[in-house]
């Protein structure tokens, strides 16, 4: 065992640096003990306690003390010391860490709108922070308790901030699509409503007629319920009425609570901007789009159809396999209205909570719905399957590529396939290519959901 002590006269290094250097020397093979330190009284005592001989020093001197197995270790130990003292320590990356909450993210960018899609139990806290930070809020998340929704909307009203949602799947603000939204050209019509796919269908039908959309403000599936009382819909309606570039307003909703419907109707009547009410059950989305076109002084024409030719499908009942809640509701009412309630009993919305818990939305991930389509083909009591395909931002990049082969197989066994295609001409998936692929596989494709439902009724009812 040998001891090496050297004094580096008038050499200053910071104490933390020297502790790091000591640790580096200590790590050299064969080193038993190492101390590199300024020669302060405290450090001289330490050196003595470690059993080293202390030389004559001043506090401006640097001490190097190494005890090692043999002389040969000293050189590498000193080399390790010099390396530790000379090497720059880091890469100099001083980027700020990522923001962790919606408030911090908004402050960094000067945002004015928050889009919240965290799991339902956590959505309220983020949304409340967004409102407290002066942001308008869209809550895409579902499974948010209704008392929290009321609290958010009340807070929004007090602050003059719009709360879209919870369970708001779609919005368009100045042409920017949020959540599931179709690409729309700028235009004179603004939409408001408690219905995601209802808004999407209207956007697409207007787009097909060459009319653009300025804003589409979703308000969340429960906004027109008795409990929530249409707070956001009424607030948005007033804002759209005051928006100078909006020429026609369309209010769209699933069947609302009667007293809320009355209040919304009164508010719509009070608007100075021409306002169309499109309440599913009282009218179809196609009717709503037509009314909006007439309000603009245009004569509506029937939306596009990609029909099938050839053989009649097998006899049987109708099954609906939907990803959009409002599209399903509208189709069901049309089926029930013509064939009776029993015929409309088998129409599933795969976007409903019970199918989306722990699983992506069916507009993103089609696997579950396509499995059901396969089972439907295998069930020869069913004659026709009615499906929606929703395109646009946020949705699956190429739904037809997965759906067409399943459609073709189903056709093989005689199942009739009717598709309601909710897409605009500008959608990233390419609406017409999607329609063509599905049509080629054997599906009758309709741009209007109501028209698709009517066609399915005709096929099942045997009128064609």
């Amino acid at each position: 065992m040998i001891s090496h002590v050297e004094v580096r006269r008038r050499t200053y290094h910071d104490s933390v640096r020297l502790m790091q250097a000591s640790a580096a020397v200590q790590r050299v093979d064969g080193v038993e003990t190492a101390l590199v330190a300024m020669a302060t009284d405290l450090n001289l005592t330490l050196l003595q306690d470690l059993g080293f001989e202390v030389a004559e020093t001043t506090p401006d001197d640097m001490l190097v003390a190494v005890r090692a197995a043999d002389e040969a270790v000293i050189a590498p130990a000193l080399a390790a010391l010099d390396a530790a003292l000379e090497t720059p320590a880091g890469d100099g990356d001083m980027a700020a860490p990522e923001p962790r909450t919606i408030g911090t993210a908004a402050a960094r960018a000067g945002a004015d709108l928050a889009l919240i899609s965290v799991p339902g139990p956590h959505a309220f806290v983020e949304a409340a922070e967004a409102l407290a930070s002066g942001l308008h809020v869209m809550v895409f998340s579902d499974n948010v308790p209704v008392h929290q929704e009321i609290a958010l909307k009340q807070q929004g009203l007090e602050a003059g901030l719009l709360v879209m949602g919870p369970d708001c799947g779609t919005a368009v603000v100045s042409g920017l699509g949020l959540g599931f939204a179709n690409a729309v050209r700028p235009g004179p019509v603004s939409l408001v409503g408690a219905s995601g796919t209802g808004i999407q269908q209207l956007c697409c039908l207007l787009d097909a007629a060459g009319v653009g959309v300025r804003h589409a403000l979703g308000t969340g599936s429960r906004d027109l319920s008795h409990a929530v009382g249409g707070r956001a819909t009424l607030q948005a309606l007033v804002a759209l009425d005051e928006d100078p570039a909006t020429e026609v307003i369309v209010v769209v909703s699933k069947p609302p609570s009667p007293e809320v419907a009355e209040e919304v109707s009164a508010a719509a009547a009070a608007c100075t901007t021409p306002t169309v009410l499109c309440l599913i059950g009282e009218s179809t989305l196609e009717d709503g789009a037509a009314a909006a076109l007439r309000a603009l002084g245009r004569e509506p024409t029937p939306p596009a159809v990609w029909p099938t030719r050839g053989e009649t499908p097998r006899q049987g009942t109708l099954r609906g396999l939907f990803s959009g809640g409002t599209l399903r509701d509208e189709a069901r009412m049309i089926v029930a209205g013509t064939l009776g309630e029993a015929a409309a009993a088998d129409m599933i919305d795969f976007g409903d909570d019970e199918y989306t818990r722990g699983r992506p939305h069916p507009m993103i991930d089609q696997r579950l719905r396509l499995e059901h389509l396969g089972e439907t083909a295998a069930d020869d009591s069913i004659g026709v399957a009615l499906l929606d395909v929703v395109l646009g931002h946020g949705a699956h990049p190429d739904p037809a590529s997965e759906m067409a082969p399943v459609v073709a197989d189903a056709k093989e066994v005689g199942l009739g396939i009717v598709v309601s295609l909710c897409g605009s001409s500008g959608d990233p998936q390419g609406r017409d290519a999607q329609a063509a692929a599905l049509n080629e596989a054997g599906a009758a494709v309709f741009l209007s959901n109501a028209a698709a439902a009517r066609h399915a009724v005709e096929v099942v009812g045997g009128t064609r």
Partner: protein
Amino acid sequence: MIDRLLAAEPVVATAGVDLLADALEAQGASVSRAAWRPPPDEVSDALATIALHRRTDKANRIAVERMMGVRPVLTGIGVARDALGLGERTFLHAGPPIAWEDCSGPMRGALVGAMLYEGLAASPEEAVALGPEIELSPCHHHRAVGPMAGVISPSMPLAVVADADGDGAAYTTLNEGLGKVLRYGAFAPEVIDRLRWMERVLAPTLDAALRRIDPIDLRSLIGQALQMGDDGHNRNRAATSLLLRELGAALLEGDDPSRDRAEVFRFMHANDHFMLNLVMASAKVGVDAASGVAGSSLVTAMARNGTEFGIRVSGTGDAWFTAPAPEVDGLYLGSFTAADANPDLGDSAITETVGLGGFAMAASPAIVGFVGGTAADAVRRTLAMYEITLVEHPHYRIPFLESRGTPTGIDAIRVVRTGVMPVINTGIAGKEPGVGMVGAGIVEAPVACFLQAVRALAAIESDEEA
């Protein structure tokens, strides 16, 4: 307000599903994403309850205003017996309440040392036997703070730090230096001798000097020291030097024997940490002013007794929320290693509570070397703390960050929401009584304390509603 939203394409902040943010970016929108993560299940209801009652923001504004409204000044040196009304067998200690039998090695060592110093015991063995009879009470309960073991016994001199703009005050011991010292659990004869010298010479000399001048503005000294590379916790070299400059002339003017004055000057010169205790007392004046604001989630204490780590928040007043004291990640003196280290200890995390120490690391990059980090790490640590704090300190500024104020006022709610834990620069005591300091490093406050605090805040909201 909504008209402004509808006037132009919005800038969007997002939290949640990345696909939706991707879709916005694909449309060419300006998007700012939060790297959101779910808070622990056990607080998700509590967070919603607190958000529903909507009084936290205002309560926090009030609490922070009170904290920042104090102007701590050093007025003089007193004696614990008189200043705090301590009984002869009442000893104060760092951290949350603790019983003798739960004390760690260094806490026990410091208490033994204090018994020897007070003459209550003639030997360490006698002191250990007497230990259970000593009444222990946290410094924090007596407007006082102490670094490491933080032991205050009746005869000890205390620095008096008062609020120049109000009637608050706080007390702290005078710093003994590094190495074998009482606060690190050492009780050798040299330790006791030093304490006696501090009582006999240091305290009266300093007190006399302080009486000859206006109270020293500590907030101003700390602010200047941050400009000079201090963090106010583990590095106080600049602040101690500035304090000596303030005191210099007043010390020279004294009629104490000149040898005493020279010794005092030499002692302070040799102890870079002399200012630490005064920084802590300055912080204590602020947090005490901020305590007890209903609904506020402002953290008003982070303190460790060597066994447990405890925090207090303004809205729950004097309650402590505790968890086992964590291990410190650090560098060791001489041949000491992590095996020699006691878990986290001391009231000194009060400095982090007011935006210093780990929160001001960007002002003091050398400190981050304690965990093998880099200057860039120091900056990132400070930047991360802005996520969990309520304000930027108007007086404590970081030159390198374009003189941005340090992140100040920890919000317990933001800590549990973000999972960003307060970072603390600290010394490390040997775990055996009598060893003293073995290293220094960095430690994160345990999340369990903050989870309990948030649940307690939510329980108050629910009770008031009922």
